[in-house]
């Protein structure tokens, strides 16, 4: 379908995982290993979806999410959160940031594609 997805995660292995999983489903995937780098890219290019790891060292997931949502250029882009946290409390907090969906790690990359598809369908 040619839609562009931005994946931000501090672990390269997971970035590659995501890239392979989504590229084999026909998406264009741009990766960023650091929150700051990811945000720069988000503001510079036009993406259809952003995959955001919540547990990153330099910028916290909350902060990144906030910045994306408050910037008019990126506020409409759906954000899906990848997180290792599973407690209700934490998930609730995450969803309050404005993310549209989440997947807990470890996740099945094959299912990732389906979820991404659902989200993009809803957007259009």
């Amino acid at each position, binding site marked *: 379908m040619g839609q562009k997805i931005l994946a931000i995660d501090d672990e390269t292995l997971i970035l590659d995982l995501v890239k392979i999983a989504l590229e084999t489903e026909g998406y264009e995937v741009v990766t960023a290993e650091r929150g700051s780098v990811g945000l720069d890219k988000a503001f510079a290019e036009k993406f259809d979806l952003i995959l955001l790891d919540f547990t990153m060292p330099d910028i916290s997931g909350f902060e990144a999410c906030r910045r994306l949502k408050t910037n008019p250029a990126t506020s409409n882009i759906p954000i899906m959160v990848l997180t290792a946290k599973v407690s209700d409390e934490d998930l609730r907090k995450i969803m309050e940031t404005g993310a549209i969906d989440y997947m807990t790690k*470890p*996740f099945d990359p094959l299912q990732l594609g389906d979820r991404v598809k659902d989200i993009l369908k809803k957007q259009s």
Partner: protein
Amino acid sequence: MSGSEERYTQIFNSISQAVFTLDLEGNIQEVNDALTNLTGYKQEDLRGKTFTEVVAGEYLGLIQLILRKTLDGKTISKGDMQIIKADKNRLWAEISTSALRDPEKKVVGQVCILRDISVQKSKEEEIKGSERFLSHLVDNGIDAVYVYDAKGKIDFFSKGGEKLLGWRSEEIMGQNFEMLIAPEALNKLKGQLSSRRADEHRTYQTVLVSKGGRRIDAVQKVIPISREKNSLETCSIVTNITAQQKLQGEITAMNEKLNGLIRLGKMISSRTNLEEILNFIVGSVTTFARVDIAVLRLLSDDKKQLMLRTCFGADKTVVPGVLNLEGSLTNKALEEARVISVGDVTEESALSKVECDVGQNVTSMLAVPLIARKEGKGILYLYTREYCQFTRQQIDLAFAFVNQAAIAIESAMLYNREQDTINKLRDLDQAKSDFLSMVSHELRSPLTSIKGYTSLILGGRVGEVNEKQRKFLEIVATQSNHLTKLISDLLDLSRIESGKLVLKQDKISLKGTTDLIAERFKLQFDAKNLTFNMNIGEGPLEVRGDEERILQVISNVMSNAIKFTPEGGSVSIKIYEENNNVEFHCTDTGIGLKKGTLENVFSEFYQADSSATRQVGGAGLGLAIVKKIVEAHGGKVWAESEGVNAGTTIALRMPAAKDEEKTAEGEEKS
């Protein structure tokens, strides 16, 4: 007898006074009728007798004196004496004598007149008697009596007054009675007296002052008195009530002290700030013990110094902060756990300078040791500016307060330790939480890669996979799933254990939950061809708790049943209410449990039979989590089994939800 002699005899016998004559030797010559009437003697009996024979013995000296005096011819002597009458009774008589002369003017004897003064004498005795009585009263029964005239001038001051007030009667007479009243009490008394009518009997309480300036609390009864005809004076009868006042004062003071101590006790037990308590103590002890300054010093950690903690009546910035124990007198107080009293600090050479330095001049000092748990922990110093001999009461009072101080300090210390422990536990908890978070993340990331890449390969995204590769990779996938579940459960268990469980109090239907879980496990039931039954009792069958967690419980129990039941078996659920509890029983026809190992099934990682459990992929933490959650909800879990291969029942019982409970959040105690 000649005519004139007869005449004189007539006159003599007509005189109403008793008259008789004596010769120079004192013998009775002539007596008149009045005399014989008075004395009862016959003339013949008296004539020739010595007069002294009829005079009572005590007056012999007097009569002889009187008779001698008249013999010189010039004087008339008088005297009171007692005569012995013919009936042997005594008669009070006044005798007056004068010289009897012959025609040549030579003294030849005496003429004596005897006047009966018996009535007068008895009256005199009466008066003397009552005077003696009153005098006795005045001197002994009352503390003081004084009488003053309309102008306030004292004209009577009793012996008691002299004793009480130190003034001699002579010094006081003629002075204004106001000088006996203490100046500070005078105005009030004058005001009270001014509203008293002159004839009223009134009682007033006032303060008198002695010659030396000593104050005497007294009650005065003020009454009108008339000692002489036509004179109206005021009499004040004084009772010294200093002793009562003192007692009253002591009782009041004691009450105040008791109240002070009670209040202090309350402060301590209500955990009032230690600073406030110690300040209250030094303030109270100063007031109640009637001293000027109180200084509290506590032993330093190295036990070599006494550090200033708080003081009252002195400037804290001026009092030395540190007192070295070595070379100090109060070291003894600490070591021997006794009180040290110094009358004059300037004269006590054993005292170090610091010990009596409070920024002002003091004379007396009392050092009271503060003992806690048989150890000296500090000293309370009490100082007075004027010389003071510390009384038993003062020392006892100081001890009472010092003991409270010891209790307060110990209490505060324990409380602080408690707080420290609580803080440490909190920190520990936080550290654990952080650790869990980190572990969670660290373990999940690699697992994501393992699962992820395996999944990609198995999904054919990076090329074809042959049969063998597929089989091997599926093993990797299953095991990494298992690992994931294990990590999840481990973190769960840890979180539940450390009390991070937020216990909601929602009403949860066990039936509803079971239906839900049964739905979820449908595939698994079918995969092993297991039959599923539900036996539901009457009633709402609701419990109060956290829905998420209850779901977890039922899910874990059912999953366990499914895991350990071979193909073709069955899983039956029974839910019912009994004795205000809801019971949930899950019975399977599986591998059962060995007798005696029924509790163990709820332990972490328990393996009843290695071979069996290995086959199903490990025991895991499922039931351990179930136990923790159910117990956190106030319930109980247990296992039942007839033996190996006889199936197992996992049962749980929880209090039924009552309608009146409100939603609450609580932290589980770890």
